[in-house]
């Protein structure tokens, strides 16, 4: 065991003997990885906001400004009996104005109005969340008397969701391509390492080294290079988000709300590091398997 350790440390020390090349390789790997991983982080964040903004689909019914209390009661009963509706919520005009004042920081503007511009409204929570059912319900409710406007609040969320899917697919393609690049980089690095250590490999084979013995340090090297690349990628993302968050903070203060970008979760970080390590190992394995058999002692 200590032999294996000594041997591997020895080989690794020789491999890292030219630190500049090693560092450059690791940087390339790190940057290549940080692109898809960073994209993934941004998408996660957007998705998080979407979930926060509209967790359940709802239809808002805005009544006409001249609707009387009787009309409202009639409508309420009608809605409560409707089979596709789970529950409803009534928002009186005064209450709506109050909410608007609190949530958007436009209190000054609203305070300056001499008349409440908002109508009474019902918020309808449907039983089923499928897009088509929601649209049918919206169309039906729009035809009810005293309803000025029926608005499907989550429509934009569905559109955004579709866009996110598109983005995620792009991130996936990017990740696949750059993973391939990472494997190729490691493949080539290991090929060069094998060439420079050709003599040592030849001698080791002559005095009874198994292929496994010769292969092992190269695999460790590939995995380590991948791991270091992954660490660089992690730091790239984390630092970028810190900088972005600083700017975002200034921006969101202007809008009197709080938006922050979350970095990689612990699980995602571990996945990133393990994945980059695995890719490095894979590149090394391919390279060693391909090049080692060509070295035969004579």
């Amino acid at each position: 065991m200590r032999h294996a350790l000594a041997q591997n440390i020895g080989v690794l020390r020789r491999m890292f003997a030219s630190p500049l090349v090693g560092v450059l390789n690791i940087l390339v790997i790190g940057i290549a990885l940080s692109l898809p991983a960073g994209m993934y982080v941004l998408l996660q964040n957007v998705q998080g906001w979407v979930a926060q903004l509209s967790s359940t689909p709802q239809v808002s019914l805005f009544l006409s400004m001249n609707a009387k209390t009787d009309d409202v009661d009639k409508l309420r009963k009608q809605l409560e009996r409707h089979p596709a509706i789970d529950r409803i919520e009534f928002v009186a005009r005064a209450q709506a104005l109050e909410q608007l004042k609190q949530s958007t920081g436009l209190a000054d503007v609203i305070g300056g109005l001499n008349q409440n511009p908002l109508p009474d409204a019902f918020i309808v929570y449907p039983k089923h969340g499928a897009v088509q059912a929601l649209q049918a319900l919206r169309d039906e409710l729009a035809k009810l008397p005293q309803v000025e406007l029926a608005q499907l609040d989550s429509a934009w969320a569905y559109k955004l969701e579709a866009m996110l899917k598109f983005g995620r697919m792009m991130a996936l393609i990017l990740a696949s391509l750059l993973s391939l690049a990472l494997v190729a980089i490691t493949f080539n690095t290991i090929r060069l390492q094998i060439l420079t250590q050709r003599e040592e490999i030849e001698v080791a084979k002559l005095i009874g080294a198994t292929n496994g013995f010769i292969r092992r340090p190269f695999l460790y090297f590939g995995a380590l290079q991948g791991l270091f690349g992954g660490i660089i990628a992690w730091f790239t993302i984390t630092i970028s988000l810190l900088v972005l968050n600083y700017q975002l903070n200034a921006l969101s203060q202007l809008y009197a709300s709080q938006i922050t970008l979350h970095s990689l979760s612990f699980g995602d970080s571990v996945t990133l590091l393990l994945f980059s390590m695995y890719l490095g190992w894979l590149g090394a394995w391919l390279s060693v398997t391909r090049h080692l058999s060509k070295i035969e002692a004579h």
Partner: protein
Amino acid sequence: MIRFTQVHKRYPGGYQALKNVSFEIAAGEMVFLTGHSGAGKSTLLKLIAAIERPNLGSVLVNHQNVGALKERALPFLRRNLGIIFQDHKLLFDRNVFDNVMLPLQICGFDYRESHKRVRAALDKVGLLKREKSNPIALSGGEHQRLCIARAIVNRPTILLADEPTGNLDTEYAHEIMAIFKSFHQVGATVLISTHDESVLQNANGRVLVLKQGELQPVSVGLIQTQSQAQA
């Protein structure tokens, strides 16, 4: 221990290195292999270590047909052999001690025990004081001795030496032959290829003579009687 049966070796390109070579070396024997350069001495040694494979005939080492060994099995054959290469094949990126340590590392030998063994091997060839040096700082004779130390460190049952006294003056050559003899005395099978007359004159073992790839049975007796007459 080693048995060649009608072995032919032709290199790609058509050069016939060995023709119909048959002989047997018993366990514990010390045998010398001689002949002009290009007579096939190195090829014969390479066949034993499966560095080359015969085109025809069989090479048995320890009752194993070496010519038919699978690639995977080669390391385990070679661990039983101590090979002293003509060009030494030392590694100049590490010191003397680590060069000798390599075979033990490869076998996964116990770490502490291997330190003792490396020191013992270096002591045997008289290089113990140079263990920290880089091989590049050693003389030709010391290179040879270092190569021997590496070959004997895992106590192989068979020792193969390809021109171990080439380029060395007579005094060095005698020292090195003495090391081989001491190994022979503790029971190792030793096969030494050489064209060094002084070595052959002091040879106290069988001599195989190769001429253009063929074993010469007559001259074996001749040289033996010659050396016996001189002794």
